[in-house]
């Protein structure tokens, strides 16, 4: 009975009803789209950092990400590589070794971070290859060849073809020294990296720093950010087999840990949280505006029908039934609006997910740093439903106000009202 009455009441003023539904739908659409864009942007940010620096997952000696001591090594990286070859969702992996060293050109001396990389496999993971400004990236046949960050090159006053002397401490504590020929200069866009980083072929690094076959990081990339935790779990399980079977000597568990990008670069996740915080304020304002406009509609609907409601009360409808009717009316509007909003929002987001949103003028600049000039919104269950869910809660709460107010009406006064 109430359902039928509510349904009829809703369609008594079709124009107003449609406008209200559209308002709710629009709010949902905006929320879905904005959230998806934000998530898509974070994905771009994360991928940029992952591609220049960390990779999605790293296998390292426990504590290496904090102390960066040269002795904290992965001594048998090949066995981990074998595990990785069989792990699903892993797209590429490579080895790296790092050491802080004194870098010296004819004119200047400064401190830097030398990284030994596997030229061939590195180019599948890192986008340093695509950010070369001068010269070329390392080749597998290179020995004492280096590529270095643009700011470091500027500090040392070196150019392609010049020599750089590196002096540091080898893994056994002896003095490590080598003369490197600059083959290329890169500019990753991350200033602190470009100011200190110098990359040399891994075999030469291992020779100079007496590392034998050891490395510091096994870097892994996955086919998607969303598979990182799954890959990490299976990798960790493979590294630390649960029953410590037969003690097979030095392989498997060497105090190694598996860390994902967010554990490796805590700063990145913090800046994302900050941005998300700012976004939440925007959404809150949007929700409050939607709430007021819906409340306005509902309150008007009750006011202009005061006489009618009074009549209903007079002919025996209890205030509870009236409230129920009004709540049902608002529920109709809200559900229609949300359904429409989710549909439209998903279609719009999905469309842009396919075409991407060009970033206009910034495109060229971003491309230089290996970031694609397109931002693709990322539609997930969370981004599609969390916004509409909030709209639902807010509209239901605001609709309660007139629904409760109607309980205080007395038939005689109500019928006399204009």
């Amino acid at each position, binding site marked *: 009975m109430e359902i039928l009455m509510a349904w009829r009441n809703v369609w008594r003023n079709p124009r107003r009803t449609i406008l209200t539904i559209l308002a709710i739908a629009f709010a949902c659409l905006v929320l879905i789209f904005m959230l998806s864009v934000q998530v898509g942007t974070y994905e771009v940010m994360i991928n940029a950092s992952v591609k220049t620096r960390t990779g999605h997952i790293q296998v390292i000696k426990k504590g290496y990400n904090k102390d960066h001591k040269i002795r904290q090594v992965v001594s048998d990286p090949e066995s981990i590589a074998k595990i990785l070859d069989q792990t699903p969702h892993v797209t590429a992996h490579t080895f790296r070794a790092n050491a802080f060293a004194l870098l010296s050109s004819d004119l200047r*001396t400064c401190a830097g971070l030398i990284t030994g990389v596997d030229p061939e496999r590195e180019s599948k993971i890192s986008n340093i290859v695509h950010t070369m400004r001068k010269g070329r990236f390392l080749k597998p046949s290179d020995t004492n060849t280096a590529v270095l960050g643009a700011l470091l090159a500027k500090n040392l006053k070196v150019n392609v073809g010049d020599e750089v002397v590196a002096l540091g401490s080898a893994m056994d*504590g*002896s*003095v490590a020294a080598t003369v490197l020929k600059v083959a290329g200069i890169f500019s990753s866009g991350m200033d602190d990296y470009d100011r200190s980083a110098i990359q040399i072929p891994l075999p030469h690094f291992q020779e100079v720093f007496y590392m034998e076959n050891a490395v510091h990081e096994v870097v892994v990339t996955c086919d998607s950010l969303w598979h990182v935790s799954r890959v990490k779990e299976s990798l960790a399980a493979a590294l630390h087999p649960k029953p410590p079977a037969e003690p097979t000597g030095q392989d498997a568990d060497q105090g190694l840990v598996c860390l994902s990008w967010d554990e490796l670069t805590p700063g990145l996740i913090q800046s994302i949280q900050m941005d998300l915080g700012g976004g939440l304020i925007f959404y809150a304002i949007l929700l409050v505006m939607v709430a007021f406009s819906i409340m306005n509609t509902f309150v008007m609907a009750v006011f202009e029908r005061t006489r009618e409601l009074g009549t209903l009360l007079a002919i025996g409808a209890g205030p509870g039934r009236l409230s129920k009717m009004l709540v049902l009316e608002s529920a109709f509007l809200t559900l229609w609006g949300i359904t429409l909003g989710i549909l439209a929002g998903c279609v719009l987001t999905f469309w842009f997910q396919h075409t991407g949103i060009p970033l206009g003028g910034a495109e060229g600049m971003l491309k230089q740093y290996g970031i694609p000039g397109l931002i693709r919104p990322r539609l997930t269950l969370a981004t599609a439903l969390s916004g509409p869910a909030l709209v639902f809660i807010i509209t239901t709460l605001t609709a309660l106000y007139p629904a409760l107010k109607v309980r205080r009406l007395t038939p005689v006064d109500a019928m006399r009202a204009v």
Partner: protein
Amino acid sequence: MKKLILIPGLILVLFSTTAFSAQPDAKAIIAQAWDYMRGRTSVSEVRMTVHRADWERTSVIKAWTRGLEDSIFQIISPKKDKGNGTLKIGRDMWTYNPKINRVVKIPPSMMSQSWMGSDFSNNDLSKADTILNDYTHEIVGTTRSDGFTVYEIRSLPKPEAPVVWGMQTLKIREDGILLEQAFYDEDMKAVKIMDTSGIVEMDGRPFPEKWTMRSMDADSKEDYTLLEYRNLKFDVPLADHLFTLNALKKTQR
């Protein structure tokens, strides 16, 4: 030669007499200790052991010093590092590697880094005399050890002094032997503590054979660097050209 030993001896006598009558000057005690340890010139052979919880490495270093300002170190063993050297003139430092045959000047930004992988920093070597010029000193107590008075001195940096420490404390025996030197940060937390032990007769004067530097912020309490003097000669005439970049490139004897 005799005269040179006489001078610190004279100061010694002076101090041992004044110690009982009046509070001696803290700065003079430090100056005397530094002179005592370094002499006018010195030639020494030191075994350096860098100890870590899971690892240890020993090398032998030959060192020549002239006053407090100039010194030159050369590694003579292990073979892998033989010929690596460090030259210090005033506050400038250079390092030489024979494998690549290059001399590299250590930039100011690297002065607080570890020297040859040890718990000593480049600053510890190059700014050894900074305590005399950049700090104000105060005797905070005296104790007795092996029949000697030991002065405990607290040194605070002068307001504008270019130093890295917030405070240093020293324990110096009245005959000029440094027993302990502790380095504190601005929060007055001990960062590094060096102590000496095994006082034996070396080149005619008592001298601590073992010098141990411990970094307090290391993960393990076992981490330390031990210097053991195996051979020490004071006030040897040294040629001026010993303290040059050319000398750094040659193996000295």
